[in-house]
């Protein structure tokens, strides 16, 4: 019993030292880090598009604004028909467009897995294409 007591004390001291050193190391790392958090590399438009590629048909994706800047989207999915998906996606998008004060009306970008609007000025996001 008396021989084990110093071992226990030594183990406690070692454990406390390791904990202290870990906290100090972490603490120094935190304090020397630059202030602020990195912004995401992916845009919200890309994230929404990525989500669209994974949701169930009948579905539609509408957007307004600049996908690389201020934009809004409207996603409808698991709808009974394409027409309902289109209507709902545009409705959601228009609601956000009005709130955010974007001048150009919402347009459909995709219906189910078909891209319905692509132009050189507004290419698709670099993430997965619909249906891929």
């Amino acid at each position, binding site marked *: 019993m008396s021989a084990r007591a110093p071992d226990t004390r030594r183990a406690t001291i070692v454990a406390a030292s390791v904990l202290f050193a870990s906290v100090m190391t972490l603490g120094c790392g935190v304090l020397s880090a630059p202030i602020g*958090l*990195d*912004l*995401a590399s992916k845009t919200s438009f890309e994230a929404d598009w990525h989500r669209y590629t994974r949701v169930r048909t009948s579905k539609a994706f509408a957007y307004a604004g600049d996908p690389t800047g*201020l934009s809004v989207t409207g*996603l409808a999915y698991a709808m009974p028909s394409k027409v309902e998906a289109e209507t709902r996606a545009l409705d959601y998008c228009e609601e956000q467009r009005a*709130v*955010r004060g974007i001048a150009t009306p919402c347009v459909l970008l995709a219906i189910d897995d078909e891209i319905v609007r692509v132009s050189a000025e507004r290419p698709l996001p670099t993430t997965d294409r619909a249906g891929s």
Partner: protein
Amino acid sequence: MLLCGVLCGLPVGAGAQRAAGVEVSVLSYNVHGISWLFAKDNPEGRAAAIGWLASRYDVVLLQEAFEYHDEIGGQMAGAVAVRGNGMRGDPRLLLTKLLLFPFQIVLPDFSFPYGSGLSAFVAESAGEVVEEDRHRFDKCSGWFERSFDCWATKGALRLRVRLENGAEVDFYNTHLDAGQTESGIEVRARQLNHLVRWIERESVGRAVVVTGDFNTALSRMENVEAMRSFKQRTRLADVGAGPELPQWPRRDFIFVRDGENVALNVVASGEALEFVSRARALSDHPAAYARLEVSLQ
């Protein structure tokens, strides 16, 4: 206008009777103020910068100010500080608190598990806080899923502020659960419902501003529908204070409504871009602001 004034039975020139409006700037910001042990950066440094920048606003409503309410408030001279609800009495939280207590004595800024993390600062020059109240949500959506919602005690904070022109406005600040599982969505809907009922009970006929982190990505249809229902039931309107930078994955909200004798007019709204510098930001959320003209009618 004159014709309507006559036909509608209003005194001609009724608009001229409106008392002079005062402009109030509102900031809503999730400051990601968790302990430095979890945040993996220097949140204390961010908190000081946030407080300094936020001090330009009349009413500042923060979410996730868990550890750094005092650091932020320290930069806001001449502001009344109010905190949201504390931790609930859940045995699991109490046990965790007990086990971590020795570390919390030694380590700075480590008070986990948390309360609501809600904070409010009202500039004395803008108005007087005449009433304050807290509402604690009774359900949470998970302990070990991605959102760790149950380790905090989410809720809402209400302040009634009397502005210099005598108009009273009820400010609500909330943070809903983040879980995206089916049960998480259900809990969030329940929390939203509690918030609606609280507003209905406390702010009958009053001008209201509601801000917060609703954790409602609008790429989910159920979230869009939930927010529509919230707006319809409370008669609140979204001021459009969404992010202006494309990198933000989420948006927080500022909603307003007129009262029976107080009109709120949105002068400007958007993302408060001073909290972002090049590719770095002072939080993982965009800061939302609105400038409101508040007039007595």
